[in-house]
């Protein structure tokens, strides 16, 4: 089974880094869609279904918290798990994100292993792409 991922970040470089980490992490990715802010993300979601969203917070036009709030208002889109990747690591900001429906939070700067661990945990797959959280990896990457 493979998954569609939407990466939302105003930094093209950061989107590339996250995409590379996800694809090298053993996560079975079908399509990787990208958006530069929350508004663009909602446009993407009008046309395509994704299985997980990885989103920054601090973005122009519509930030990550506003995106979470918009998703929460939509009966269908609220089912998509969102992982927040942000420099804003204070506890109240994290709680705000969780309160708006985020399923995971990764602090920037991050190690590749952190993204993989949270992503697999949120989706509920092991390293073979199978459902069930019985991870059996040694934590190493095969770059």
């Amino acid at each position, binding site marked *: 089974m493979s998954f569609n991922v939407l990466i939302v970040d105003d930094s093209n*470089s950061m989107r590339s*880094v996250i995409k590379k980490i996800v694809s090298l992490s053993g996560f079975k990715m079908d399509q990787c869609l990208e958006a530069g802010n929350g508004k663009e993300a909602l446009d993407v979601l009008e046309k395509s279904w994704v299985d997980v969203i990885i989103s920054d917070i*601090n973005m122009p036009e519509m930030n990550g918290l506003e995106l979470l709030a918009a998703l929460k208002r939509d009966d269908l889109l609220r089912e998509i798990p969102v992982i927040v990747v942000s420099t*804003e690591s204070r*506890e109240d900001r994290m709680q705000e994100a969780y309160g708006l429906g985020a399923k995971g939070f990764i*602090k920037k*700067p991050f190690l590749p292993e952190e993204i993989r661990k949270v992503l697999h945990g949120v989706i509920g797959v092991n390293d073979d792409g199978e459902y069930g959280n019985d991870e059996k990896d040694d934590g190493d990457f095969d770059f």
Partner: protein
Amino acid sequence: MMESMETMRKMMEISIFEVFEKMFFIFLEHAGDADNHFDSEAVITFRGAVSGEVRLLVSDGMAGAMVMNMLGIDDTGITEKHIEDCAKEAVNMICGNFLGKLHTDDQAFDLSIPLYRRPASSVAADGDSTVYIHYLSGDGAMSTALQVSAA
């Protein structure tokens, strides 16, 4: 203001090392002065229990190393957009990481969208509310300026 400027300098240094080592695989060494040439800068402002701005000034050599290491591309593929993107992301991460270390009863900070400028502005001497921290690596020079004021 919660911490002294000296404490904030130390917190900032930890944040800079963490960002440069984790995201850019660059190991910095302190440089005593700012007699280095900076080609561009990224600036971010923050508001909360304390307010202020963080400026990251980089030489093109340092910026090139950041791009190559973060994106895994060689020096022939580096564009101005790559440099802008990496500089903005770096200052965003340094600022967010630094603010996370402040003891402000978990009050959230509002961060601006980072701005990028070429050429970089000039480096001044430390003041009552501003500290500069200068670094070198084998690739070039960088400096950060932290300016804070009571909210």
